[in-house]
């Protein structure tokens, strides 16, 4: 029995609701806080981008949502409500009913995620058989390959015989086999060249428009996701630094980290100006400093930043974790022209 048999609530509720999700890693010296009370909602058909650099916890967050964490990592708090049911408390059997048919995952490197000794077609068959008995395997396999723009003749090919872009497309096809409501993607374009990256993103967006699934897209490349996502989360040190409508976050970044990140992209058109980047490195997650985690590298740091950890403050519908935007705080920063 799958969730399809349960009648949905008539009132529109978000597809996915993550509340205060916390993930920790057990290390030799205690525990490291990889994801610290992250919460957001995702509606049906929405495209959410999660952006951050190495060590910010974005991949851990993703695996935490998909219930794919294994020791030494574990969820130590919070909930993940998918269509009204909490995934964190589900048993393996209940999760299996949801996996792939309603929630699927696309990994970073197809070469690592696909079985190198089996053909693409046989891997599709494994998935189809595992989750359903009545789907016509051959027909459905051809359908999804055509959806992603790969010649179905490649169902008989091995992964190493396909080019990088085609492999990633095959991964996405596999994720679409049951037309899930939510697809989680962990840096699916990182292993590709620039041109292939761009065409894959366009393809993903087209598929989303056609089939109406929601996407959570994790990447370290902010510019890549900027044109495709509806909502954007910027993560730093295991927390959400900024969360709002993509265009707003890009045009007027409010968190000093978001601003620094955007400024770190040299422009290809327009005047050439010297840039600074963000000096320093991300905090050690097993030994977090008191107060704001970005304080050590922040150009707009204030004395209170090292004592008080900022909450997420609402600024014009964008959530910003920065004391500069705390209610009652006189904003001293100027938005650059």
């Amino acid at each position, binding site marked *: 029995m799958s969730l399809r048999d349960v009648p949905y609530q008539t009132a529109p509720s978000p597809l996915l609701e993550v509340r205060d999700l916390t993930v920790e890693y057990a290390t030799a010296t205690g525990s490291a806080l990889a994801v610290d009370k992250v919460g957001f909602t995702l509606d049906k058909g929405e495209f959410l981008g999660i952006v951050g650099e*190495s060590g910010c916890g974005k991949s851990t967050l993703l695996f935490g949502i998909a219930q794919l964490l294994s020791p030494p990592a574990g969820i130590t708090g919070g909930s993940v409500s998918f269509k009204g049911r909490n995934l964190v408390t589900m048993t393996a059997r209940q999760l299996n009913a949801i996996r792939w048919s309603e929630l699927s995952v696309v990994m970073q490197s197809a070469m690592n995620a696909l079985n190198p000794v089996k053909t693409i077609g046989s891997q599709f068959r494994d998935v189809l058989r595992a989750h359903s008995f009545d789907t016509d395997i051959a027909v459905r396999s051809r359908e999804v390959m055509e959806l992603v723009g790969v010649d179905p003749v490649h169902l008989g090919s091995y992964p190493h015989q396909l080019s*990088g872009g085609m492999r990633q497309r095959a991964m996405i096809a596999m994720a679409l086999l049951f037309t899930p409501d939510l697809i989680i993607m962990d840096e699916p374009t990182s292993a590709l060249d620039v041109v292939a990256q*761009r*065409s894959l993103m*366009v*393809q993903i967006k087209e598929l989303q428009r056609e089939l109406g699934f929601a996407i959570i897209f994790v990447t*370290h490349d902010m510019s890549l996701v900027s044109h495709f996502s509806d909502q954007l989360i910027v993560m730093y040190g295991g927390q959400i630094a900024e969360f709002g409508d993509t265009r707003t976050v890009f045009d007027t970044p409010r968190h000093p980290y978001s601003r620094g990140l955007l400024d770190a*992209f040299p422009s*290809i058109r327009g005047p050439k100006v010297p840039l600074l980047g963000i000096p320093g490195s991300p905090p050690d997650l097993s030994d977090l400093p008191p107060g704001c985690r970005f304080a050590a590298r922040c150009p707009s740091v204030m004395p209170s930043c090292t004592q008080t950890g900022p909450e997420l403050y609402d600024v014009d519908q964008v959530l910003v974790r920065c004391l500069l935007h705390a209610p009652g705080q006189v904003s001293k920063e100027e938005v650059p022209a």
Partner: protein
Amino acid sequence: MNQPLFNEPFNEPFNEPLNSAANAAREDEPLLRANGLTRHFQIGGIFSRRNLHAVDGADFSIGRNEIVALAGESGSGKSTIARLLAMVYQPTAGEILFEGRPLSGLRSRKDVLAYRSQVPMVFQDPFSSINPVYRISHGILRTLKLHRPELDQAQRVAEAERLLTVVGLTPAAQYMAKFPYEMSGGQRQRIGFAQALASNPKLIIADEPVSMLDVSIRIGLLNLMTELRDRSNVSFLYITHDLASARYAADRLIVMYAGHIVEQGPIEDILAAPKHPYTQLLLSTVPDPRAPLADLAGADRGEPPKVVDPRPGCRFRARCPVAVAECATVTPELRLLGDRHSAACHVANATPSPTPTPTPTVPPTRPVPTNAPTHKDFA
């Protein structure tokens, strides 16, 4: 102290003496020039030997005090060119001239070592390019030992600390004793630069030095490169797939596709008016978060081919929006189409080029190279 690059005359058809007249002629000679550089790899088993054409007929030059960006996707041949210049591979055909003298003339270990001191390399992966069992000073000290034999142990340590300061790792004494696992990716790449600088090089080959670093760290290293160009008179061959960073750091640009150079010239000229369709494609896919999105439809689906035993003709023709009949039969050659701006494309060659209007840039503030003594003049 200007040490001569080579210690003995080599076997050349014209064995001219190194007098001042010949030297004066060499002053115009670029620092490094490649003529028809070609490298093939044999693939396949005993029964089906085939040739992978990694690089074919590359002609380019690198001058003093300049950063040349070499851009292309995977399979373009850019990494192979790096290794040809670093003498990791021998060319299948063509030659490389450093300061006017061909590399094929380097026979003895001394000659090769002298060249290696002038043309070191910085690698892409900061996590595997430093030996994890030794402290980070190990590579720098070894380079000094090999290439600056006039220094004694104490002088080597002092010089290593000075180099760490130059690349921005201060306080240097603290860093000398650290192990690689204690340092971040950006810091490790700086050590790579320090190691390259240890031998007082004239040209550093940087093979995608920032690709594996976080975006916020990249700028720091690109700034380091431009600083070294201006202050230490070092040229760079900056290999990358990111045109935006190439524009930020480099003076000239070489674009490669499937083993061929398809366009080269001053970077602002190329970006303002790209002549080759591949350059145009590459430019259109560079995401600029601040700019509005160009049209999404008609996104190119192709990928660079693996060039095995190719027939003549343009290797981009399968993906080219403006390909003509000639493209399938005649391999285009690099033709000068503007001021020092050349491209290898039949269509671009035929079309009269409009005068490009370069985008307004902040004028570069680097000093004009003078004859003022640099740290290299003090042994």
